[in-house]
């Protein structure tokens, strides 16, 4: 009698607790773990140093970079058997002026050997028009166009003696999701199957990407700063996006 009373009293709050939390907790048998990605910003093989170092574009024109920021989102991993895992809510803003932003951590990833990674350079269509966002997509990050809804996917600002703009400025704000000026691009790279991304409960691998800022200005169209030094969406942004689609990121190595 006393025992059953006791049990009832104990069970009652447990039921309540579980009813409170029900929607957020889902038990799955699959093991999950963590991996990280480091984005090492460079310009044609040299470290990216903001404000001071002079680089050359493919046309041989000098330039400096003051701001370099870009979104990486919707990260998707594939296994050799063709199964894929899309990391939910994976939106990251990498900012060359903030060292901590260049190393991102992906949590709750099912363990396994992954042989391919792909992600959006920028932000998917829907989120450009969604309601107020937070985190990497918070407009406070200066990557949201307030007058023409949508995110700036890649932002590079700097100077070049060749630029005809006031103060020899370079302003490359790449974004826009509507045809014919859609700049959403996907980057994909195979991972050497001899050394795949091994996500393990007892190991947290790190992928190391080289990011070449100069890729904005070459690849499909060599850009001269004398003729193109300012773009905020539109046809010229498409030229830049087509340049960096394949050249911006390169998987250098993986530490398993």
């Amino acid at each position, binding site marked *: 009698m*006393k025992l059953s*009373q*006791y049990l009832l*009293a*104990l069970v*009652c*709050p447990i039921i*309540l*607790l579980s*009813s*409170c939390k029900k929607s957020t907790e889902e038990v799955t048998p699959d093991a999950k773990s963590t991996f990280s990605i480091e984005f090492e910003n460079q310009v044609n093989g040299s470290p990216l140093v903001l404000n001071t170092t002079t680089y050359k574009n493919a046309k041989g024109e000098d330039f400096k970079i003051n701001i370099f920021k870009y979104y990486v989102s919707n990260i998707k991993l594939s296994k050799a058997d063709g199964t894929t895992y899309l990391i939910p809510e994976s939106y990251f803003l990498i900012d060359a002026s903030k060292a901590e932003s260049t190393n991102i951590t992906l949590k709750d990833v099912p363990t396994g050997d992954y042989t391919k990674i792909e992600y959006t350079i920028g932000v998917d269509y829907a989120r*450009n*028009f*969604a*309601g*107020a*966002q*937070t985190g990497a997509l*918070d*407009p*406070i990050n200066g990557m*949201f166009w*307030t*007058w*023409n*809804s*949508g995110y700036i996917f890649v932002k590079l600002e700097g100077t070049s003696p060749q630029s005809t703009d006031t103060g020899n400025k370079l302003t490359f704000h790449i974004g826009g999701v*509507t045809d014919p*000026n859609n700049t959403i691009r996907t980057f994909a790279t195979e991972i050497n199957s001899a050394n795949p991304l091994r996500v393990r409960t007892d190991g947290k691998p790190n992928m190391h990407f080289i990011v070449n800022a100069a890729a904005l200005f070459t690849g499909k169209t060599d850009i001269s700063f004398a003729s193109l030094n300012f773009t905020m*969406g*539109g*046809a010229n942004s498409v030229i830049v996006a087509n340049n960096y689609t394949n050249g911006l990121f390169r998987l250098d190595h993986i530490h398993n």
Partner: protein
Amino acid sequence: MLRKITVIAVLLLSTAMMYACSKNEDEITPEEKKITFSIPANFPAPAYNFEDNKLTNAGFALGKKLFYEARLSADKSVSCGSCHQQFAAFTQLDHKVSHGVNNCQGKRNTPPLVNLAWQKAFFWDGGVKNIETSPLNAITDACEMGTDIETIVAFLKSTAPYPDLFKQAFGSTEINSQLILKSITQFTAVLVSGNSKYDKVTRKEGGISFSAAELAGYNLFKEKCSSCHAEPFFTDFSYRSNGLDLVSTDEGRSHITGVSSDFGKFRVPTLRNIEYTSPYMHDGRFYSLDEVLEHYNSGVKSSANLDPQLKNGIPLSSTEKEQIKAFLKTLTDNEFIKNTLYSES
């Protein structure tokens, strides 16, 4: 004995947990009027339905306070409510264009804030695609509030009673752009105007009917105007050129789309409460409805992207103009304009 106390304690704890679960509902004091988003019977389903932004009295109250907070602007002189005045159906009386910080005169006429929950694009050029992000445009425009969201977040974090108000609205003293925008939307999306004489006649409420002139005006309106100013919002939300100028000085919609066939086009404005939303057109060039109707009668210019339906204008006799005007005044919703729930308190 000890066991009995433990049992009672555990039971009490479980009761407390039940309270914790339902805390939000209990916090609303019974005598306070519950803020609701009501859809008039003659309106379709809204585009914005508060799915990801639960409407609460505290959220609405915070949103309203932010809407009327002039200290958010660069020189602390302009709030949302400065250009969106309730007595003018939330547009700005007697201002051709919006009047921003440092006495800056904006580019376009302030649009009324009415039935925004049914709108999918905002501003005259439709550049903003979500009601929640709409305030950012006015906040950052150098000629409107002239500030940025970072400054506003910092101001609210350090200014009483805002941290408390955010706690009441969202359960945490955390203040960020998302919560600011969501609370403002709890105010602006609730601004539903659907109790005009026109609405009551349409819904056959209380034996109300149009006068002979109003009815004649309504019939003329359906024949000559409603292909663009479609019921029940009195806009079809499309972008058109109505031939104000041969060459528009404002590129309008093409600023957003980059497409030359959109040059000089603007969103068809709602006509609800039009009696109080003067001046008219994207640049506020007309002060009276007579001028507006005369434009359609005799003033339409053959601009490059002129709407095909307007290529011969809309010929109107003076009787017809008076009848249309009589009908347009049935779109005035005094319950909305005078609702103290929406007023600065």
